[in-house]
């Protein structure tokens, strides 16, 4: 029984983080039909901001807010540098510019900060553990679950009820038609990038909290996770991204509990083969998004 509770907590906290990561990637993909390869670097930027403001002695929550704000700004910068100038030209061009932007940020961190890991300040509560029904678990995991629930509810409300959310969903469904009805394209795309940055910033607090340090290459793993989760769940459906995130966490946690050590190291190869198979079998992912119009 304790093993089961342990599993549920591990699965939910990992799934919450994965779902937020996937959501940040898919909100841009839904509207532009373009993958943002520089997405992982948003997490890196949040981490380095936390490191840089670490010495100032501010309360941690303020530092976290500054870090998340930087991640939002960097998300918007991605739009201006890598997407807007080439958006209308070709799919390949945008994918290459976002890949180039990702390399630019990574090497910027290498050059201006350091190739070595840098410790980031963490609140005391992150290192504590609690006991629930006989299971000792870090408070951080419970905080991750709570944050995921709150962020997902707020996000759902934003997309369903607010004007900008409705406009974004309209743009994701049929971009040309939405523009004709007066939805400002650039504003919508920039907001999508800002929300993407916000989600990456929030999730980075917990992701980095696990590791306790930040290195220039830290963004790769979250990017890969977000990739797999969105492909599994459905590239165009927001709900699909969340489902995909939790499903991936379920698979990962399950494999961690069951696979022997020498097969576990091939886990990435297994999950990525799964991605290829799912894209072949159901190019739409498990959840179909809204019928899509042409990208402009």
């Amino acid at each position, binding site marked *: 029984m304790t093993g089961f509770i342990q599993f549920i907590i591990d699965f939910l906290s990992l799934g919450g983080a994965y779902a937020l990561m996937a959501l940040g990637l898919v909100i841009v993909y839904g509207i532009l039909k373009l993958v943002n390869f520089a997405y992982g670097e948003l997490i890196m930027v949040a981490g380095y901001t936390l490191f840089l403001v670490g010495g100032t002695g501010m309360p941690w929550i303020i530092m976290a807010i500054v870090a998340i704000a930087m991640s939002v700004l960097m998300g918007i910068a991605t739009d201006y540098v890598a997407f807007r100038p080439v958006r209308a030209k070709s799919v390949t061009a945008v994918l290459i510019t976002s890949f180039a932007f990702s390399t630019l940020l990574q090497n910027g961190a290498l050059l201006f900060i350091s190739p070595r890991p840098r410790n980031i300040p963490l609140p005391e509560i992150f290192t504590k553990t609690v006991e629930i029904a006989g299971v000792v678990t870090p408070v951080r995991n419970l905080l991750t679950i709570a944050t995921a629930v709150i962020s997902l509810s707020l996000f759902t409300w934003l997309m369903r009820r607010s004007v900008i959310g409705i406009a974004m969903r309209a743009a994701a469904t049929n971009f040309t038609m939405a523009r004709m009805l007066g939805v400002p394209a650039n504003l919508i795309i920039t907001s999508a990038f800002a929300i993407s940055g916000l989600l990456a910033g929030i999730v980075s607090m917990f992701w980095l909290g696990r590791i306790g340090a930040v290195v220039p290459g830290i963004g790769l793993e979250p990017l890969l996770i977000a*990739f797999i989760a969105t492909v599994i769940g459905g590239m165009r459906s927001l709900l699909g991204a969340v489902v995909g995130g939790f499903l991936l966490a379920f698979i990962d946690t399950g494999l961690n509990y069951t696979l022997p050590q020498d097969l576990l190291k091939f886990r990435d190869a297994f999950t990525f083969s799964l991605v290829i198979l799912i894209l072949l079998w159901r190019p739409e992912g498990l959840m179909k998004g809204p019928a899509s119009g042409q990208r402009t």
Partner: protein
Amino acid sequence: MKRHFLTLGILIGLVALLVVSVEIADVRLLTRIAINLCIMLVLVLGLQVFMGNSGILSFAHIGFMGVGAYTSSMLTIPLQMRGMALPDLYPVFAELLVSPYLAILLGGLVAAGVAAAVSFPLMRLSDAAAVITSFALLVVLHTIMQHWSEVTNGPRTLFGIPKATTLFLAAAVAAVAIVAALAFKESRFGILLRATRDDEVAAAALGANIPKIRWIAFIISALFAGIGGALWGHFVTSFAPKAFYLKETFVVLGMLVIGGPRTVTGAVLGVFIVTVVFESLRALEGAINQAQIFSEQVVGVTEIALSLAMIAVLVFRPGGLLATREAGDMILRRSENKGTK
């Protein structure tokens, strides 16, 4: 026909010029740079065969480079060293030793074989789905290279590969690659593939079997990558799986995009320009680190410059420096214009 021979003449002349001048200068560092440049030519031209003609971005290319490098190494490491370098190698291969030249060719063929086996279903996909699957393929290949200890020595460095890649060999292979890339581009398959790039629906309506055509181009592209990887392996003589991942992918992609993915001349030009800029920046970086101007080591300047250049090229000249015309076309057209005046 004349213009194609002119293009080939110019491009191979460029490689020959490089070889001759490096031989005359006879500086060790320059020779290394030139060999590296020739290997990059093979890799970038391989990517051009698929990406330039089909218009689909492929991230998996460097994965096939790794396949070629490991295949060739496994067959050529001297027997007395093999027990140390690859302690867990399968008994079948433990006593098998072939000449490096044959092994390089085999490296290319194995890479092409792997590409043929895994990629056919992927060729149905276009746009973002195609890119994500190729990215996933790179991660799968990388994970396998990193953990298949029997063949790759795991994530550790594989050493003891005999040095076989000379400047002449690398330049000769690069010249063959130039001929092959241009020949493919102008062949029936190449023209059909370019038609699918420009208008998928119209090409399909004309009867082009899109997955099959793309598949053939992908296999040829992997053949180049495998040979390039094997050449590289016999040049550096020791390497680890992390050499075949995103950093290398980025460099190859940068060279192709800056030069112009749609033309063979562009690909060649991109390799030359990026190599020159890269090596000067690297020298500058080295000099700064040597002089210890900053307290920390300066790293990453080359990648920053390359990524800025890529973004600039894609914004201002989306087709690269040479977007549509090969070297031969440009010269012939110019002389024709003179004639009419």
